[in-house]
């Protein structure tokens, strides 16, 4: 990996972190709308995986994958506007926080709360590529908790059966809301059962962006070449609560401290800063990210609310429906 490629990964991780911190501050000031979800601890997974995709590929992130939304083309402005329920967000105020943020023109499929419901949809996307003989790949994210659902297993079974060009990223952050993995399943290595369905599987350190990226690149290449689906289990710890309201008192403090020392963003900065002459570039990236986020907040706050008279608009696709607004 070249220095420029490394700095690009760092930029997306840093943008995700800067956005996340600014978002949390906004909510703590009481200026948020509804709830929202911190990304802290997930930056290396969402960025490292999504960076493996090429033009025309489709990604279906979840609510911890701000990095993937950003990297694949939603702007900080659009996302902050969505958080604040404004007309300028990708859901025009229809869907909350990081939910529903689809941009099909950019190959992004937004998610719904019902994890892992993005997985069968992403499988369908992958099957549409097969149907049209397009050398494209679909990537979908889900969490450890959702691996206990029946749907997860239905999808893995069909992905293997149809040899679909699908890459599944399981973000094992050790907690499904307040329930630790060990209280939800006897399975210790989540990627294990995927192998039984015929997927290529691997488990990686989800705090090491280069490790995630390398595994994702291999999986994407395999899928694109017709080699079938893969599943990557990326291990991390959710560093804050399930959502902003949740203090996560149920997570042992010593566990948090151990993972804080392995923070994906600051560890990567330390690694890159070891090379001569990169410190200035890293500082530069951080400044630029802060500016982009401040610009996004200003844009979102200045954006109009959706017009209540349009509340019934958009329930159905209607060929002749006039554009909104």
């Amino acid at each position, binding site marked *: 990996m070249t220095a420029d490629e490394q700095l690009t990964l760092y930029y997306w991780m840093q943008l995700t972190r800067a956005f996340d911190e600014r978002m949390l501050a906004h909510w703590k000031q009481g200026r948020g709308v509804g709830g929202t979800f911190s990304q802290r601890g997930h930056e290396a997974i969402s960025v490292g995986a999504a960076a493996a995709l090429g033009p025309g590929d489709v990604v279906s992130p979840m609510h911890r994958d701000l990095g993937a939304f950003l990297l694949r083309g939603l702007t900080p402005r659009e996302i902050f506007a969505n958080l604040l329920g404004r007309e300028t967000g990708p859901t025009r105020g229809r869907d909350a926080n990081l939910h529903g943020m689809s941009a099909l023109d950019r190959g992004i499929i937004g998610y719904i709360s019902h994890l892992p*419901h993005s997985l069968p949809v992403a499988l369908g996307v992958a099957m549409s590529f097969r149907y049209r003989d397009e050398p494209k790949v679909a990537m979908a994210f889900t969490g450890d908790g959702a691996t206990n659902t*029946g749907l997860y297993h239905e999808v893995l079974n069909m992905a293997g059966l149809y040899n679909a060009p699908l890459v599944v990223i399981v973000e094992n952050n050790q907690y499904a809301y307040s329930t630790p993995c060990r209280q939800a399943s006897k399975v210790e290595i989540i990627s294990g059962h995927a192998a039984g369905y015929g997927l290529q599987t691997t488990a990686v350190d989800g705090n090491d962006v280069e490790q995630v990226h390398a595994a994702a690149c291999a999986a994407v290449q395999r899928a694109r070449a017709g080699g079938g689906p893969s599943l990557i289990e990326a291990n991390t710890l959710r560093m804050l609560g399930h959502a902003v309201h949740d203090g996560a008192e149920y997570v042992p403090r010593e566990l948090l401290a151990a993972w804080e020392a392995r923070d994906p963003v600051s560890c990567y900065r330390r690694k890159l800063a070891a090379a001569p002459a990169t410190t200035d570039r890293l500082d530069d990236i951080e400044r630029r990210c802060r500016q982009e986020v401040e610009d996004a907040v200003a844009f979102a706050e200045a954006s109009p609310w959706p017009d209540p008279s349009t509340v019934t608009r958009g329930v159905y696709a209607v060929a002749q429906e006039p554009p909104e607004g």
Partner: protein
Amino acid sequence: MIDSTFGFAGADEAASGRELTYIAAISEALREEMRRDPRVLLLGEDIGGDFGGAFKVTRGLEAEFGARRVINTPIAELGFTGMATGMALMGLRPVVEMQFADFISCAFDSIVQFAATAHYRHLGAVPWVVRAPSDGGLRSGPFHSQNPEAWFVHTPGLKVVAPGTPADAKGLLTAAIRDDNPVIYFESKPLYRTMKGPVPAGEHVVPIGKGHVVRHGGSLSIITYGAQLREAVAAAERLATEGVECEVLDLRTLKPLDTEAILSTVRRTSRVLVVHSANQLAGVGAEVAALIAEHAFECLDAPVMRLAGLDTPVPFSPPLEDAYRPNAAKIYEAAKALARY
């Protein structure tokens, strides 16, 4: 075999003399749309090969279109319905076969949460069709006889259709496949091979959202759909011999309801009986009755009456199932009482 024209066939249809069973009309719609549009493909359990599905609706389609377009799935309704949503978001037009409408509950989550909300949330069109073989009278018990249309009528973002004739079976399925929204297509199993009628050859589209008055009469209106249409018409013919002339309105589409057709028939007859096989409580009949109460109260000479399935699971044993579901004899009695009110 019962003639589905109910004496009101169009001149062209009658002239062509071409008749199909209800089930053959469904198969024809699938075949013609697959020939017309390479984006149309089929998904479902046991639908491929020579087997062609539990009811043989898709027999011969894999031979013509290949396994790429006729995809046999594992028993995973939730998974393959979600898969259809992903295909549809990418511009394909999957038609999903539920082996029985009863099994649609397995896929409920993906239908009502993901597919139905996608366009409202992010303007992502989901042009799929889920075919749901429904209704009873076939002694198939609680899990192969259901009519779960009300769940989907209650879900914003879906369209719901329920043809009651072979011509409408073809025309509504064609319209559903061409529609840019998710459509649940309730096909009536009891009509599959027991109803035959004229079906236009080639292009035949019945617009979604339009009811159809299949019989005119001034004494009262029977509003119905699906398999009960045949029962309602039989009851109306019997009543006509006694001087009671029923207007029979076939809703054909349950979502969006043809409000104008409903209110028009009320204004003509001032008496309404709503009939459906699904159980009565909070069913489609309740919505029809509420619409009439809100918008045509002053036209009524009698309370709106409903005749529907009982609020029980669908029972198996013939005397129990006959007690459960409406039929021509029960409609005759209910309509006669309403006419005298």
